[in-house]
């Protein structure tokens, strides 16, 4: 028995929502970062699903790009976060508002 495509899409939507809400309501930078990853992977999941449903290899190809970009983003993002934690121990995202207008 095959799992219908809509299920995957539902899972992806749920994951995306969890990620988005997590990003909006959490203060911990590291957690917010994981939420972003969650959203990215939710999108990857929809790409793969649609690729299977529509018999189009393009969706899977794009996923590779997304993963590469995500990997690069993780490297930079984690680098920034480590740099921030070196300066202050208990920083939340709201403490980092030096760029306020």
């Amino acid at each position, binding site marked *: 028995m095959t799992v219908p495509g809509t299920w995957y899409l539902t899972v992806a939507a749920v994951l995306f929502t969890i990620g*988005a809400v997590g*990003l*909006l*309501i959490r*203060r911990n930078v590291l957690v*917010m970062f994981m939420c972003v990853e969650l959203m990215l992977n939710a999108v990857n999941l929809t790409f793969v699903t649609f690729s299977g449903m529509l018999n189009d290899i393009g969706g899977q190809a794009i996923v590779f790009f997304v993963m590469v970009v995500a990997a690069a983003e993780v490297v930079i993002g984690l680098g920034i976060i480590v740099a921030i934690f070196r300066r202050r121990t208990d920083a939340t*995202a*709201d403490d*980092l*508002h*030096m*760029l*306020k*207008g």
Partner: protein
Amino acid sequence: MIHAAWLIPACPLVGFTLLVLAGRKLGDPIAGWLGTLATAGAFLFTVLTFAGLIGRAAGNRTFVQLLYNWVPVGGFKIDAALQIDPLSITMALFVTGVGTLIHLYAIGYMKGDPRYPRFFVYLNLFVFSMLTLVLANNFLVMFLGWEGVGTCSYLLVSFWFERESAASAGKKAFVTNRVGDWGFMMGMFLVFSHFGSLTFVDVLNSAAVGHISQGTATWICLAFFLGVCGKSAQLPLFVWLPDAMEGPTPVSALIHAATMVTAGVYLLCRINPLLAHAPDAQVTIAIVGAATAFFAATVACAQDDIKRVLAYSTISQLGYMVMAIGCGAYVAGLFHMVTHAFFKACLFLCAGSVIHGMHDQQDMKKMGALAKWMPITAATFAVAWLSIAGIPPFSGFWSKDDILAGAWAFHGDLGKVLWFVGFLTAGLTAYYMSRQVALVFLGKARWGADAHANEHGGAEHAEHADPHESPWQMWIPLVVLAGLALVGGLLNLPYKPLDLMEKWLDPVVGAASNVRHISHAGKAISAIATTALCLIGVGAGLRIWTSSATHDGLEPSFLRRAWMIDWLYAQTIEKPGLLLANFSSTVVDKGIIDGAVNGVATLVRGSGARLRKLQTGYVRNYALGIAAGAVVMIAYVVMRAS
């Protein structure tokens, strides 16, 4: 020989170039001699050309020498070319002749000046420009010379620019002349739009055969006459000339008495075929000339500065010439221009010699009895004085008389009125020149050690208080010019066949001249009456001013201040001009222009201050914004799709 004409303007141009490049190295006095040599060369070539011209038949004395095609634009062609004809060569002769003498004089006069070479640079440039003006064969090249002499006049009037008054006098001369130049340009535009050419031969021949309406000719002549008013210092644009006396005296003699200011009269003579078609313009010109002559003569009676008297006298004599042109007596006007160049240059140079000898004293009230100390200057001044006063047989008598006869022959009662004004002016001229002679050379010395002690309270003046005669470079030109002033009348005696100038200029101005000559008896009566009045003027001037130097009743402040015309201009032009400038500085500039600029800046800053509140610095806010935006966009796409 006539083909050497191009060398006439080339000489001072070469002199100018050499002096610009090497003047400072040559220094005092070699730079001066170089400048003099260049002008003398021009004079030599003018004489050669003149001789060549005399060799030709009277009807064949117009010779155009093409130098190169200057502006070939479609149908519009302007050549850089010289027109050699009796009129232009007459001008060139006295410009270069008097110019050479004045250059020689300046070698002595400017000695020790820190900018000695530069003075001769300007002077040679002036002679070149003047020759361009005179020898041009079309209006545009003439205009080039016209502007060139204006520029040199500006540079030379404010030659001692450290003095505030000299700097502003130069500015005044320049600005006033711009008004006249506008007239000249308008005249040129009108000529071009009517004739389609700016070349004298084309335009004037076409006008001579009547290819022009009276209205057009009148407007052209009036436009050019505005230019003449500026350059030749006629009412109402004369105001710059008295102030131009701030320049060194050789400049006053060369530019502001003998040559440049006569450029206007030359222009009027040049366009005589046009004037012949514009009787209204002629009447205007004659009236303005007569009014200027009389006005300036009255003002000259009440001036204290030795050069200002001569400046107003120049204006007055120029008025005479312009009046003659207006009356159609072209030859008389040109004749007077030549004799005036002799005696007025002589007077100015004498005045310079006096100023030099008196250690830069210009106030005649502080002179007196100088004849004893400066015999050569006094003798030459006396010749020029009798000449300008119209005493026979000096040159001024003959030329002035010709003009008065021409005015008498002018049509209707107007001619008689003009004659009477000229007659009165002749008397006034004799009076104020005698006043000057009495104040400067006769009477009691008012410049003694006491006067100096009172004035400057210094012993430093006492040691060189005595006036002295000038060096030979200065008095030789005086003697030559005085000689010319004495015998200049021979150029055009009113007896056939001795009317040399009349015959000489006939091919150029003959057709347009005032043909109704008056009888010999009439001429004689006019001459006798004028001479009698002049003698009375001389007698009165000498008697009154030799005995005492103060007669307040004879010098009303109205005349001292030149009929308040400067004041009038200050009230009617300067004041509204200042108000307008103030208005545009405070209201237009500060209010409107700065207001607009500052307004835009304030708007940007204000909106920036409000917009920057969006930039909270909280990542969640931005994330919320992104999420909300994404939701809205997706919602929009979905709604559209369904």
